[in-house]
């Protein structure tokens, strides 16, 4: 199997696993889901990417991850403000 297919399968499996646990715990939280997805994609991209060359299918992934990191910062700020507002 190609690395591309492996990466897609791993990410899909991870997202399904997270969704499954959220449904079992009866806490569907979009923020937690996003953070866990970000962690998953970070790990998978790091494992898949080659040191010598960037596959074409990973060319724009780093931009997606960078955007995710910024969004993650916004989520953290929101949580801090929620705690402070209590």
């Amino acid at each position, binding site marked *: 199997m190609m690395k591309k297919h492996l990466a897609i399968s791993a990410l899909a499996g991870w997202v399904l696993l997270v969704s499954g646990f959220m449904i079992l715990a009866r806490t569907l939280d979009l923020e937690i889901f996003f953070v866990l997805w970000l962690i998953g994609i970070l790990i998978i991209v790091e494992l898949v990417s080659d*040191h010598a060359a960037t596959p074409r299918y990973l060319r724009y992934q780093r931009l997606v991850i960078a955007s995710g990191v910024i969004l993650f*910062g916004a989520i*953290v*700020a929101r949580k801090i403000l929620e705690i402070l507002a209590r």
Partner: protein
Amino acid sequence: MRRLPALVVSGILVLACLLLIGLQAGSPLLYSPRSDPGGADHSNPAALERAREDRAAQVLPLISDLLDSPGSLVLNIKSGDFEYAARDLQEYRQISRSLDTLVINLDMTEGELNEFRNANQQNLAILTELFNGTGRWNELQTLEIRYRDSGDSQMLTTITYEGEALRRRIQDLYRDYLEQDQVMRDTGEKFGLDTTGYGQSVIDFREIVSQIDRDQHEKMTTLQTTGTPGTGPYRLTLGIDRQRVSYMDTVRIEGLLWEHKKDHPDEVDLFIDSRKIGSIPTKPDGSFSYSHLVEHDREGTHTVFAVYSGSVFSEIRTFFVETSGTSLDLKTPSLHNGRVAFEGVLLAGSTPVRFAPIEILAEGKRSGTARTGEDGKFSSDVKLSPGSHKVHAFFSADTSPLAPSESATYEVFVPEPSPGIAGEDGLLANPYYAVILAASLCASGFGAFLYLRRQRVGLSPPIPVFHLPGERAPDGADNENLPDLDDGGTVTGVVPYTGEAEAVDTVPSGDLSSLFSALRMAVARRLAFLYPLSLTPRELCAMCRELPFRAEVCRFTSGYEQVMYSGASVPDDERDMIGSAARSAMEGMGGPDH
């Protein structure tokens, strides 16, 4: 182009999934028997029955343990094994706490279970006090032997009086324990549990009381025989005006010190429940009086005696404090700035209960506390999470002769806070909030920048440069432009990449090796391949499978292989044809796609 429909379908599916998750994530509501509306049309008997069975299966073992624990605890107290009794008490306390937590978590508000919990809480308090009381009783036994041996009659009288207070207290405890008996046994029998252990604890408790009663009676008889109280030149008498009192009543204690020397001020120490409450000055005629306000006295019998100069003791008098019922009135809660304001008053009959602790409960969990004022009124602002809450106030005080009470339940709806960022309660209303938001975004932006930069350094290939075999690599300024590798070195064995097509033109047609090298470099540069020197002719052909000049490259590599590896001599015109394929490929690279 074949991928386009698949991409479009995938994109639509992803957007649909995100939309569905987004709709649910705001207010997740999954079906469960408990979240099902309580209307008759929505009832699911099978599911509700199952839920009830599940909850009962979790609670039953705890109830069974709570019925068994007192048996072992009281037996250990009776046999004087206080080390094991302490361990049993600790376990009993933990099981009680587990039951409370479970009942709150499972939202079990059935009347019987609540009644059992209350009775169990009472039992826990009673047995804790019994444990402490019997411990003190044993100490008094030891002290009695010591003082009797040393002939210290005053101290002997003191500890005998303290023993009397203790005896009455333990009798009260036994009476309270019997009051919980019915509820505990009924609950156990209803669930089909064994209540033998609990029944045995009642029997053992009675034996403890009887034993203490007998011992104390013997001591008091001995004390009266030896005639310690009121002997010598002095004699102290004591009287109480009311035997039964209740909350906020006054007990008037009066006494007389006989053989009192006139104009000689004296002081008498007054003890209630063996605890000194003060020194009372005597009047010129030797009489003294004290008014005791019943406020923080527990329900039950209390002992009173007086002592003059540490050696003259009065008789022991008792008074009984009855429990008064209380009423807790809570006004309709109101919302103020996102907080719920509670106001109410606590009365015992018509008497306001002052300085009493009040708990505010939302869904049975403590959400806030308050304390009543002089007039029995209390108020509290409690922050509740957005949504609908069932709230009520609750009063319970172990240190007062007052029965617990709770107010009526109100349903309070707390709205969601306004999400406007620039609004009055928004993020920008407080400059610190804006600073935190900006700092967090800056930090995450910096993190994203570092991530991108690290990726660029680590993964982007250095620009390949080419030269023809035999030609010297340029030095000086050109080398300075070569990119650094990770280990600090530079890409070696290469020449400037410009003009490779012209370079190929200069190679003689017969020098196929040079042509292959140049073509390999050019293709590697085109495909951003880092190690072109590792490519074999077939790999070079395979790499070009998606390039428009694939046919020319593969024709060249095929001919090149034939020339280089077959060992047979190849005519010059065929060599020229192979060379022209290489040139065509180079020209293709120099075309619009290059």
